[in-house]
């Protein structure tokens, strides 16, 4: 058994920011991550990070309003206020740590335009902002000498006397299972993209954190809100940054028309992501696409802009679509990208499970509501990561460890033993693909009752088959076969929560667009949907949305 004051699960931006804040507050903090920290999926964030800097004539309230309008009024406005007010200081803190943000002519931080916002307030490092931030935070983790359990997979959270007091983890290098005891656990394990097939997300984004919390009674909120990014490559679902449109790229259909004119005459290509994705899908469905795609046209931007500011996606277009972005338009389509929902938490990461915090994509604060603005996710990870690290470290200072022993791992050991010993007949790959396809067919940009119910039915069938999955690898060292099987279990829990929440919401809002109920209904549905695991199965609950100063209005771009 290992002991730490605070255990942070996940070493992406949210987790490392939390660990750093806790460490600076003088407590013993450890990170546990199933991959090395710099392999985390925060890497993949390309375009930038938003902050309204008041001294530059961009009041934070404007950023807050854009965020709230982008969320289709489902975000909790008190939380959005905190995020937008603290954005500037967070950017400056990261710059001081060493992030090499792009500059303007005076050597000050430069900005670019991004979707759903009336101001260019997105700070960036070319088109690999996430990577640039992630590597710098890792440098700080090294400097602060934070203990990191690298390539350890968390199998379960330990709850004793109603409080979360640690986690059970498996060291992938040895296959050994250990208890890590902690006075507070900060969940920062990221998103669940692989529940969908295809997705822009990395293969490690399997909803582990949400499922782990769900299994110990943590409610999952806004799970129906799944973001489809407007510009993903058809071949492998890779992301083409919104930064391209921020720099002025067009979206055109098979007739060469900038079709966004008909859907968002003011913001055009830079309308909110849900709006642009729906527009693209409509064009494709009505026969104005080519091979189920529309085109991202960067030709007029010129080679210098492409080389200096969009180098990574230009490589992606070359490698995965065989195209020279400077000379040819790139076929793109909406692709699953981000989960707005997650473990219900507040502005300090506090969840309804005492001792358990949640931050980053795994959490639902909620600042993104029905649709997240581009470049708000990096901000979310850093602001709430830091706040949770501070809050948790204050909490643990006066507390002792819970009286648990190594026996807390017995349940997980038994699960693993059963998986390895069973005479399985199903291949996990087949189940994963079927799950991903039914999600992508029935819970995508356009939804309806029948499709969502089909998905739920199919998911329950897959959950049955999951119990018969064969784990071919019986070894202990780097048994990735076992890892994927455990991950599939997490994903199936998340998928069910998404389908249940989506069926529950009988209106269209943000990313949740029902062709059978196309209107937003503030009267009945200006509220969050929560799914919890009860003794008889999933239970559904509601919470009011916090409105401070922005009353819901019709949403046009």
């Amino acid at each position: 058994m290992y002991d730490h004051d605070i255990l942070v699960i996940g070493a992406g931006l949210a987790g490392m920011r939390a660990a750093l804040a806790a460490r600076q507050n003088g407590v013993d903090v450890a990170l546990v991550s199933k991959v090395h920290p710099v392999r985390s999926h925060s890497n993949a964030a390309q375009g930038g990070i938003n902050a309204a800097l008041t001294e530059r004539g961009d009041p934070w309230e404007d950023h807050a309003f854009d965020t709230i309008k982008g969320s289709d009024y489902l975000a909790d406005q008190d939380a959005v206020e905190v995020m937008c007010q603290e954005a500037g200081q967070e950017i400056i803190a990261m710059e001081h740590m060493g992030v090499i943000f792009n500059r303007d002519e005076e050597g000050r931080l430069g900005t670019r335009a991004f979707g759903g916002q009336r101001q260019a307030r997105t700070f960036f490092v070319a088109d690999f902002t996430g990577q640039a931030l992630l590597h710098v935070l890792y440098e700080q983790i090294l400097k602060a000498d934070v203990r990191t359990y690298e390539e350890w997979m968390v199998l379960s959270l330990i709850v004793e006397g109603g409080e979360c007091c640690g986690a059970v983890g498996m060291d992938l290098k040895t296959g050994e299972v250990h208890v890590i005891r902690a006075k507070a656990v900060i969940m920062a394990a990221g998103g669940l993209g692989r529940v969908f097939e295809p997705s822009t997300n990395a293969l490690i984004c399997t909803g582990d954190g949400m499922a782990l919390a769900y299994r110990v009674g943590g409610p999952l909120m806004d799970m129906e809100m799944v973001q489809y990014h407007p510009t993903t490559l058809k071949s492998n679902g890779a992301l083409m940054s919104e930064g391209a449109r921020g720099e002025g790229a067009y979206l055109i259909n098979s007739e060469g028309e900038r079709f966004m004119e008909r859907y968002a005459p003011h913001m055009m290509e830079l309308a909110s992501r849900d709006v642009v994705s729906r527009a693209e899908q409509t064009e494709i469905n009505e026969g104005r696409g080519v091979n189920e795609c529309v085109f991202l046209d960067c030709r007029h931007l010129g080679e210098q802009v492409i080389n200096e500011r969009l180098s990574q996606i230009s490589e992606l277009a070359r490698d995965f679509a065989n195209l020279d972005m400077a000379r040819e338009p790139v076929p793109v389509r909406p692709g699953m990208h981000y989960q707005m929902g997650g473990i219900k938490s507040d502005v300090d990461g506090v969840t309804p499970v005492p001792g358990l915090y949640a931050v980053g994509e795994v959490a639902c604060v909620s600042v993104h509501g029905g649709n997240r603005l581009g470049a708000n996710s990096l901000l979310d990870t850093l602001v709430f990561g830091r706040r949770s690290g501070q809050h948790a470290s204050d909490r643990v200072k006066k507390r002792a460890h819970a009286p648990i022993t190594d026996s807390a791992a017995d349940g997980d050991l038994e699960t693993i033993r059963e998986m390895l010993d069973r005479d399985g007949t199903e291949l996990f790959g087949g189940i994963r693909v079927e799950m991903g396809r039914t999600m992508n067919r029935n819970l995508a940009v356009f939804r309806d009752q029948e499709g969502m119910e089909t998905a739920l039915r199919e998911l329950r069938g897959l959950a049955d088959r999951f119990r018969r999955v064969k784990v071919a690898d019986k070894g202990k060292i780097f048994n990735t076969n076992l890892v994927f099987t455990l991950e599939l279990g997490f994903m199936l829990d998340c998928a069910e929560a998404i389908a249940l929440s989506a069926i529950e919401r009988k209106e269209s809002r943000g990313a949740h667009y029902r062709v059978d109920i196309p209107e937003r209904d503030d009267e009945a549905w200006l509220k969050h949907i929560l799914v919890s695991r009860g003794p008889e199965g999933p239970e559904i609950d509601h919470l009011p949305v916090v409105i401070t100063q922005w009353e819901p209005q019709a949403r046009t771009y």
Partner: protein
Amino acid sequence: MDVTLSVRRFDPEAERPAPYFQEYQLELDDSAMLLDGLIKIREEIDGTLALRCSCRSAICGSCAMRVNGRARLACNTKIADVATADNGAVVVEPAGNMEVLKDLVTDFGPFWEKVRAVEPWLQPEGPEPEQEYLAPNEDMLHLAGVMSCIMCGACVSDCTVLAVDPNFLGPAALAKAYRFVGDPRDDADAHRLGDLNEYGGVWDCTRCMQCVEVCPKGVDPMERIMSLRDKAMEAGHTKSYGARHAEALTASVEHHGRVDEAKLPILSKGRFNVVEQLRMVPLGVRALLAGKMPPLFPKKNPGQESVRRIFEKVEKRQ
């Protein structure tokens, strides 16, 4: 497209652990990446195959491995580009210069220790400014070229120095060091360059170019190492063997229009370093006996004057 992947397997838990090759026949799209093939194997054919992979977009750095003998990322390597043999076979092996843990999974422990050894964090002096540090965008764009390193280890895998001397910091850690030395906000150049001048540091690179060729992100580690050498010499670190070698070679070409191979080792070791000079005697004798001793008084290079003019021009430009 029909392809055969010949994958080097290693099961550390086998009775007598030993690497072996296993062939997998696959039918894939013409546009498939190597990673698609490997994922197909582990999901549909053989669940026991172990490899690291995550983002599929050449940004997480997990899937560096040797393909037909060269380090590459599996995720951005098109199978059609590497299935060149007559039978369409592609040889897939774990990254080199690292211990293999299982199949294609290698031990990155030493890799990260070396990164940590260069103190990879910004070390500014004086109080922090209230707002951002002011810095020219060109400097930031230049650093972005190094910061785009994804720490995949491809350069380390194929580094010819590491193959013979594991003490070498290696291209990835040195490129990381450059990222700080080249950062106008960092004020620790003096001790950074001093450390990098030691054994295992910048002078151990043999300029074989392997790291430049295999880097999937265009980081150009060797060029960064060369810049670190220049900066180390500018900072007055001229006493190391490497620095003296560089100076002696330059001086020789400038004055004779060619390398004076007989004097070069003497000057590199230090003219008055008697112990080192004596150590070279056996080598000199062997060279003499084999008829390979360079002339002690080399012939005048007819182009000597032109070479000198080139030097003058370059110096003027600097």
